[in-house]
């Protein structure tokens, strides 16, 4: 069974390869939109906790508040998405039966079980409708919780890249070197963007700097990743994933430019911040979709493996 590229007009020359009636060799993940949404929300939460802790230490109250609230809502929504995606949501607690370093999902569960309560506590203290007695009760724990959340945040932002890469999904596995950098960059630009939207312009300086630095890391790592992935990089350029990736790039560049220019304008700053957040969403969905597509088309499994064998 010789089979040509599925989408008619391939960018690179056709790779001829053999497959079983064009059927997939590996299975795409059964994950739905919950998982790319969580990838974004986890990154947003992590970056926000870092900004909040820095703002707390440097007396920037509106940025601290923005960061803690953004972290609280992001991680809560992310947690809901994770449980919702399970085949048996009622068995969520089974994740806590074991601690397995060979399972990035197990490692992530334990990271989240430290990060989640810490970010939750710090965020709860910023809720406007919190009763006074609760506020007093939480009082002494809020700053330590914020610091604990910030300390675990980098792990929250980066482990998801290992989670995707540690699979037989060609686009994710071949991206294993650069994907963590794409994800932390995306987390920083999203959280910075959210800080620019929510905090006062006088407090938002660090959010702008984090957003611009994150955008640069994300764009550079993504470009490098497409170079090193080999054939599966096609899935980041074609189809729906390609559209999302182009949108992500445009939004991230526009947002970073806006962040650099609109330092005094609240309107421009908020607009740029929203573009960065949207860019991060698009990046996560693009990488997720690319992986699914790379698993559905046997070309991306067979051709790189055949080339590897032929080199031996």
């Amino acid at each position, binding site marked *: 069974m010789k089979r040509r590229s599925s989408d008619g007009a391939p960018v690179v020359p056709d790779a001829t390869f053999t497959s*079983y009636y064009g059927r997939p*060799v590996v299975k795409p993940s059964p994950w739905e939109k919950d998982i790319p949404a969580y990838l974004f929300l986890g990154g947003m939460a992590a970056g926000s906790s870092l*900004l909040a802790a820095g703002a707390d230490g440097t007396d920037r109250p509106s940025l601290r508040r923005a960061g803690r609230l953004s972290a609280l809502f992001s991680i809560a929504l992310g947690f809901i998405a994770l449980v919702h995606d399970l085949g048996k949501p009622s068995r969520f607690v089974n994740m806590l039966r074991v601690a397995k370093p060979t399972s990035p999902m197990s490692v992530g569960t334990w990271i989240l079980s430290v990060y989640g309560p810490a970010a939750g506590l710090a965020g709860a203290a910023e809720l406007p409708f919190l009763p006074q007695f609760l506020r007093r009760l939480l009082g002494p724990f809020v700053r330590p919780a914020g610091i604990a959340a910030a300390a675990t945040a980098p792990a929250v932002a980066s482990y998801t890249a290992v989670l995707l890469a540690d699979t037989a999904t060609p686009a994710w596995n071949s991206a294993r070197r650069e994907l963590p950098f794409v994800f932390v960059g995306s987390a920083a630009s999203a959280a910075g963007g959210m800080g620019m939207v929510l905090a006062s312009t006088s407090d938002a300086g660090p959010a702008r700097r984090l957003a611009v630095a994150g955008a640069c890391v994300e764009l550079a790592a993504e470009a490098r990743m497409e170079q090193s992935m080999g054939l599966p990089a096609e899935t980041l350029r074609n189809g729906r994933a390609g559209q999302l990736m182009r949108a992500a790039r445009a939004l991230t560049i526009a947002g970073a430019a806006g962040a650099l220019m609109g330092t005094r304008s609240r309107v421009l700053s908020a607009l740029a911040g929203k573009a960065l957040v949207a860019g991060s969403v698009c990046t996560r969905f693009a990488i997720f979709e690319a992986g699914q597509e790379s698993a559905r088309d046997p070309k991306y499994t067979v051709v790189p493996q055949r080339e590897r064998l032929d080199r031996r």
Partner: protein
Amino acid sequence: MGQLSGPDPHVASNAGWAETPSRKGFFTDTSVCIGCKACEVACKEWNAIPDDGFNLLGSSYDNTGALGASTWRHVAFIEQPRRFGEQQTFFDQAPTDSRGDFRWLMSSDVCKHCTHAACLDVCPTGSLFRTEFGTVVVQDDICNGCGYCVPACPFGVIERRTGPAETKNVGIAQKCTLCYDRLDAGHMPACAQACPTESIQFGDLDELRVRAAARVETLHEEGVSDARLYGEDPGDGIGGAGAMFLLLDEPETYGLPPDPVVSTRDLPQMWKQAGLAALTLLAGAASAFIGRRK
């Protein structure tokens, strides 16, 4: 973390079993498979697997498609305009000249029960475990259906079962158990028991390897030069399979990956990259707060 790749002759005891029988597995000799699908049926009957669809796929006699949550044995059918070894077909004496050489490949695929099983490595609940026989089995009452094992498997074997809510084990990962319950009682797996040509052979993995090597040699002597073994080499990317095959063409012809590698092999490097990225984020966030306030 234990051993993540390479040969591992003591896979069950390394998984924590104190006393282990010799490692069990399959040798599927596709050169004698007649495509009767008795293995598919016996597997479904014994393991009480729900139906996987009554479809006509238009791929020779294969209307099953692929291994999956409700398909633990899958017979592949491949029609090729080639001769089987030095077989005399007499097609050249046929009344029409439109017929040429022809051979029909059939192969019963199954979970490979890898020495380094990615599904087991990445399972976050401990539902997937290594049995005393060295096989890999899902514990139905523990799996929470996270689905991570599905993209992890380099062979596309394990799958999360879908269907109406009343379907048995719906929502959780399912695959071949190498009939763990039958092994415990001293029986061979249902598919091997049902196979009428001994294409599916069950036994001690060490012995099966010897048998497989002898069989491929015999076939080569008889002129079937394209016979080759698949999954028998402990030096391969999965540390050798618990279910090996004798194939008559390249693995990808049968829908098998030509050079499978357990992704966990590279996990230490992946964690290192993630650690570097995490430090980059921490440093970036810290330096965002350095500088004059405006």
